């Protein structure tokens, strides 16, 4: 009888210990999840400020600084948009295979290089390369951030997380053109690209330091709360 009492007591203790551990793990996951959403919102907003300022100024830049007519401008934008959307599927493959964080860093790095190239570009070929790099980086950033937002939270908070991230991104998209326009008037038409580069660099550092990986690639175990398959 005493053996059974001890065993039951032991099992109860084990159970309590397990529940404390599971509670601790849950708490850890919640904190990581909240930090990740905050980091995604912050870096996403900074990246949106940069992207919107480039989008706003680039068409004026192409017409005024490089002297392109409307047909050339439309052609360059369409080719770049289509090519980058197609190549971004490759970026998606990378994110699924080698992890989200690495691909996001790659996407922001493309945008950084794109912003610097915009600043120094003089010919149409250089411009085409620049627009390609920038749009490719932007598409990688968008799709990777969407996946990371979904994976950082549980389904009961997923839409709210998207609400916060998308709202802040929209705010960033409003702020970007305002700053770019102001810089254009004060420092000249190429200066907003330097501003965009600085913003991308900040987003790069933010992702590097604050963001936790949500999916490490095909061969790794998933531990995030949102990593659930229906």
């Amino acid at each position, binding site marked *: 009888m005493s053996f059974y009492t001890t065993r039951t007591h032991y099992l109860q203790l084990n159970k309590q210990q397990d529940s404390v551990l599971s509670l601790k793990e849950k708490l850890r996951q919640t904190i990581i999840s909240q930090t990740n959403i905050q980091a995604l919102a912050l870096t996403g907003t900074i990246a949106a400020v940069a992207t919107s300022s480039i989008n706003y100024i680039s068409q004026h830049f192409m017409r005024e600084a490089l002297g392109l007519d409307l047909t050339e401008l439309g052609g360059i934008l369409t080719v770049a948009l289509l090519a980058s959307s197609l190549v971004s*599927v490759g970026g998606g493959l990378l994110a699924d295979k080698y992890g989200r964080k690495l691909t996001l860093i790659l996407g922001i790095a493309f945008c950084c290089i794109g912003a610097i190239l915009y600043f120094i570009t003089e010919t149409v070929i250089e411009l085409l390369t620049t627009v390609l790099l920038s749009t490719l980086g932007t598409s990688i950033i968008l*799709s990777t951030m969407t996946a990371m937002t979904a994976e950082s939270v549980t389904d009961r908070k997923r839409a709210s997380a998207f609400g916060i991230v998308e709202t802040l991104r929209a705010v960033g998209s*409003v702020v970007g053109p305002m700053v770019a326009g102001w810089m254009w008037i004060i420092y000249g038409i190429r200066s907003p690209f330097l501003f965009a580069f600085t913003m991308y660099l900040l987003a790069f550092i933010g992702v590097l330091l604050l963001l936790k990986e949500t999916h490490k690639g095909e061969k790794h175990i998933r531990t995030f709360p949102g990593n659930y398959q229906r």
Partner: protein
Amino acid sequence: MLVLAQIIISFGVSVGGSLSPRYSREIILANEIELSIITSLSTAISIIAMIPAAAISDRIGRIPPLLAHEILVVATQFSYAIAQAPIHLILVSILGGIGAIGIPGFRALQTELMPQEHRVKLLSLYSFISSLAAIPGPLISSLIWESSSLGPRIMFVISGFLVLPTAIVVYTSVKETLRKPHEKSMLQPMEAGNRK
């Protein structure tokens, strides 16, 4: 089904939306200030509407706000067609901004329907398909504008009728992905990792 819905929406919205600034300027005779109000008001309203809409989407499910979004998109297109003065376009722009209530729920639904191993690849493919679907829109709306005897207003009516089937498609065929509160919580890492 969601991909099909997205193709129809992208195409429909690009038919109506691509020439809407020109329509506002030349047909409705809006001045520069009214044009900038029309453009910025929609973004401002969407910024205000998105967070509460997201919370609602987490409570009642992804499909109802998404359906409301589709209906508002259709209403926006039809309202453009019947607008007579710049003030009407300002009201339409408010309606368009409220239409953003479906975006967080749509993003959540989109990611929940995609398997995690292929999520980013599928999201990229999805945006590529949307971009492709939006390409013929401006061309078609220009052709309608130039050739139709009914005038440019018909462009928005066509756009509305293109988007309308999407609401029906989404409502009838996409499964609700948000689980009910009594169902097991997902905040169990090991379980979440092991579940297939």
